């Protein structure tokens, strides 16, 4: 029997556009910027064409996408698995909620303040486990949101189990959608630049792959890890603060498991080792999970199963698959 195998070859346009000659023709330029441009256009147009219910879903998907991107950045580029993404959301949400209800600051101020101070706080809280390798970061980050919920419900601070209601809300549905979409896009752009083109991005990747090499280069691993956690936490805290002012309410549900587990699933499904993968995964999983809303917590089972399946059997993920199909073609050759 004639044996055959699949051979993958780069497409001609990919080979041409890898070099400086890409700028010589419109086709190659389109090949390079096309996918990114398409993503941006789709995200910017979606709020205009969606029906009202799905506009709400879009804002939630945006928040989850932001969390997924922040998780993916830490896991894929710095090597820290954050099992407690809900901590960032909760801290950001509570800071902006408390600032708004006690000092009466408008959302325009509370959201940035919450993002920065919340990220600082989260980084400080996670600092003790940063000098260690292995599972410590995952373990400690997993405990924080659950312990915080216990503290809030036991002491009854900040409204206890009822939360704080009656906060300022964002002005209208268009602001809601475009704020989150623009922030997601800005974060994507900044992170892509950071990990691909900045020195610190190289250090982050080094921290993931070989910490000893980073130490040997006289760089302080803990300091770089702390910076990465700060960046990731700032995105998570923004998500929390945004949610607070989206609903005008802040409560313990901001520390819920959903905020930890869906970004994880989105990252794994969307494709590891890419910045865009988590975004695509989140925009795919959140609508599915919305349509499963009537099943209650079965949704979390759904993400978990999808996540385990992808991490074990389909490690490539959507984004890496699509990129391969976009840049290469396959053919069967005789061995």
């Amino acid at each position: 029997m004639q044996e055959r195998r699949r051979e993958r070859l780069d497409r001609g346009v990919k080979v041409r556009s890898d070099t400086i000659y890409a700028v010589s023709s419109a086709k190659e330029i389109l090949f390079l910027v096309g996918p990114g441009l398409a993503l941006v256009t789709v995200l910017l147009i979606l709020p205009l064409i969606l029906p009202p219910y799905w506009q709400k879903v879009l804002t939630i998907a945006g928040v989850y996408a932001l969390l997924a991107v922040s998780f993916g950045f830490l896991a894929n580029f710095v090597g820290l698995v954050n099992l407690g993404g809900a901590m960032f959301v909760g801290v950001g949400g509570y800071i902006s909620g408390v600032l708004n209800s006690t000092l009466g600051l408008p959302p325009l101020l509370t959201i940035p303040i919450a993002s920065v101070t919340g990220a600082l706080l989260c980084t400080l809280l996670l600092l003790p486990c940063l000098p260690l390798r292995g599972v410590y970061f995952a373990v400690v980050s997993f405990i924080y949101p659950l312990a915080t919920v216990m503290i809030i419900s036991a002491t009854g601070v900040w409204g206890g189990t009822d939360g704080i209601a009656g906060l300022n809300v964002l002005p209208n549905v268009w602001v809601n959608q475009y704020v989150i979409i623009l922030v997601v896009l800005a974060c994507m752009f900044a992170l892509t630049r950071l990990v691909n083109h900045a020195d610190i991005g190289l250090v982050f990747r080094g921290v993931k792959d070989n910490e000893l090499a980073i130490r040997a280069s006289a760089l302080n691993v803990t300091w770089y890890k702390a910076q990465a956690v700060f960046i990731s936490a700032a995105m998570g805290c923004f998500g929390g603060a945004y949610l607070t002012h989206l609903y005008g309410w802040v409560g313990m549900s901001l520390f819920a498991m959903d905020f930890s587990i869906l970004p994880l699933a989105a990252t794994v499904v969307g494709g590891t080792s890419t910045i865009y993968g988590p975004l695509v995964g989140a925009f795919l999983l959140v609508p599915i999970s919305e349509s499963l809303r009537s099943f209650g917590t079965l949704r979390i089972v759904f993400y978990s199963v999808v996540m385990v399946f992808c991490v074990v059997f389909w490690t490539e993920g959507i984004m890496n698959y699509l990129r391969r199909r976009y840049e290469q073609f396959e053919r069967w050759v005789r061995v």
Partner: protein
Amino acid sequence: MELLIYGLINSISLVLMSIGFALAYGVSRVPNFAHGALYILSGYLTWIFLNRLQMPYVLAIIMSLLVAACIGAMLYRSILIRVRGMPISEIIASFGVGVAILELLRWFGLRGTTYMLPPFAKGMVYIGGVPVDLQRLIIVGAGIAVVALLWFFTHYTKIGLALRAIAQNERAAMVLGINADLVATISVALGSALAGLAAVLLLPLGNITVQTGYEVLIFAIAVSVCGGLGSWGGAVVASFLIGLAQITTVTYIASHYHLVVAMLTIILILILKPSGLFGRQKELEERV
């Protein structure tokens, strides 16, 4: 006196909860984040065997322990074995399985006070003037027995020695003809069965709820991190530390701070002695 007795009981409960996790991590280096889920699942299965299938209590317990061990072995053979050596994937996969089991149980309606296991023995005894119910005494006895048996098992049986060999130096053990995958499967299965045993012993004190599953996982992690990941002797010492600290806060400050105490202990230990109380073995690998 009351403080001491209840602190002791609480510590032994923590030993029971965490020893399975510490054992599996110490041997196969797989952090079994499905530990809490297996704990609750065993409790639930025992309840089903007992109330739906009308089995005798002892048979129900043995059956659910066997099922827990089988699930643990399957979890390792079908999922974890494929991602060995990739810490991120190991964590995500085992955590995903755990969350899936727990949330599936929640969906089946595992909340409220419907699901309760009967205690083994009803009644009270007075120790130094402090009332202690018999179930708690059984827990203390069982905890001591489990630790003793486990020590005997890992020091004087062939499989137990193989477990320790793999934990110390996997390559050298493989050279000596120890099947690393088989041993790791046994360790995860044993860890799961120990989680089940803890569930059967401890759950009669309260209700079977999903939240308990997450808490058990946290306690197991806290104890293992404090004792030094992978050193189950350290886990026993750390259990006493955390257990006494928890009861002290309950007595002098307020209840509901179990988790916070565990959290603070982890943070303190990580700052003071990052490899845990007794985690000398892999210290160099884990510190940067």
